[in-house]
């Protein structure tokens, strides 16, 4: 179920990217897309009634949640943050240059 929610989120983000003409909204769309992807990655490691993967001697490996997707998501979040920061910086520069955030208006100039 969560898989589906993640894919819906990704599609929502893509939809936003493809339809909006506003630069800041495009950045938001990109973020929604990435959040959906991160959620999808997390669901790969999901294990019902799973426990944290720490060996204590009394638990078996079967109960563990897969820790690797979580590590991947942690990295992916940081990278997404970096991309958002650069994209916002560029968006600000576009606004300085053209005085608008609307792609249509920029295209005319």
């Amino acid at each position, binding site marked *: 179920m969560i898989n589906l929610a993640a894919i819906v989120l990704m599609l929502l983000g893509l939809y936003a990217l493809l339809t909006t003409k506003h630069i800041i909204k495009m950045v938001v769309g990109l973020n929604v897309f990435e959040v959906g992807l991160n959620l999808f990655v997390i669901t790969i490691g999901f294990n019902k009634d799973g426990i944290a993967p720490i060996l204590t001697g009394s638990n078996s490996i079967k109960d563990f949640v897969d820790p690797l997707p979580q590590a991947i998501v942690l990295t992916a979040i940081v990278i997404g943050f970096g991309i958002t920061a650069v994209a916002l910086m*560029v968006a600000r520069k576009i606004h300085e240059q053209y005085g608008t955030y609307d792609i249509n208006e920029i295209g005319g100039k």
Partner: protein
Amino acid sequence: MKYSVILIALPLLLAFLSMFIKKGKENLLYLGMLINVMLLFVLEQGTYLIGGFERPFGITLVIDQYSYIAVLLVNLLFFFSIISNYKQIGKHSTVLLTLLAGVNGLVMTGDLFNLFVFLEITTISAYILTTSNKNYVGTFNYIIVSAVGSSLYLLGVIMLYAGYGTLDFRTMTEAISESNMSVMLPMLFIFAGLSVEAKLLPFNGWVKGVFSKANGLVGTMLASIIATAMLFVMGRMLNVLITDSLIMDLALTIGIITLVLGELSAYNSKSIKDVLLYSSIGQSGLVTILMISGLIFPAIIVIINNGIAKLIMFTIADEATKEKDDFKGFFSNHQLMGIAFTVASFSLIGLPLFMGFYAKLNSLIGLFEMNLLLPALLLLVTIVEGAYLIRLNIKLWYLGEEGTATTEIEKASQKPSLSMIVATLVLAASLIAVGLMPEVLGDSITDKSLLNEKQIEYMTDLKGGM
């Protein structure tokens, strides 16, 4: 010794340190670049386990013949790009160091997720570099397309992980070949994700906005260094990981369309930078075709030839269009630059005596053995390529009737740096040297002759080393 790790770690460390220095950041860049070039001489082939974790649990850096050439080429191109465009570095030292770490990681890593991280390090550095074009809308397009592309790549990788439980290249390949599970969808995502940076149609809408106003530094970094690294990554993916025949057919079609449309667009372009950027797209298509056909050795020569030629051409193109957009007769005052540019363009066309000849010759020999359509296409495209490159050269050499000779004052104001001329001439000389002694390539790449049957051996080498 694990020099391969230092190739990545040292630029990253220096990039971090350079943030605390106010003046003389460039010195750290020069230091990192020089140490990296020196490390290339002591670099040994082999597989390096990072952190002591055994395969498939740990991350590996793989230096087989294939990635050894890639590392060598990428670092040397970076070196020459910096010394010929050192005036344009400005505030970008930190970014350039991270970019160097990123491309080194891209070509060496043996881990799928690690590849994603290095892809992002490289592309984020590239975004920041392209902001110096002042064409922010182009940069924004690049960010959006590239971010979605690499997300698709990650989606594909994580689907494969869900299926096979590993991220290691070699383990993954073995697992895929043993199972009957369909892996078409994740492979499609991976291919699409990498195509964005490899400039394949239809994912290359960002290229024009980024390149058409790029200065020498940004142009060479993107068209020569990142392109080289990405084509090597693409080649590895297409030969080792992506095995699905439908995806291969799709990739072949995309490669052919990219080659034809790229070269035709180059033919129709007037501006010197537009010609070069469309020609880069065409070369990406050619490399994709060769890689899919299993002709790894010709593909590598095409990549080397394209990397060196594009470095020379983008550097000089920027110099030629710096003062005024009209570049007619620029070389009549700058003969040395003209010679380097002409050598690079002749090599790109594939005329004899230049390295490009062996690139085209080996590609044709390989392709003729498979069918007749592809070699015919390649020959036709070469004619188009020759037409527009020679036309460009004529424009640059001759003033024409309406052109005016530059005055002495103008000449003095646009005096190019000595290091640029020396660097471009050295690179041009290397193109001729390889053209005269092609056995150099064969010796260093396969230890055997240039001929085709050795490639099978080379392929197994490649797979075994992964």
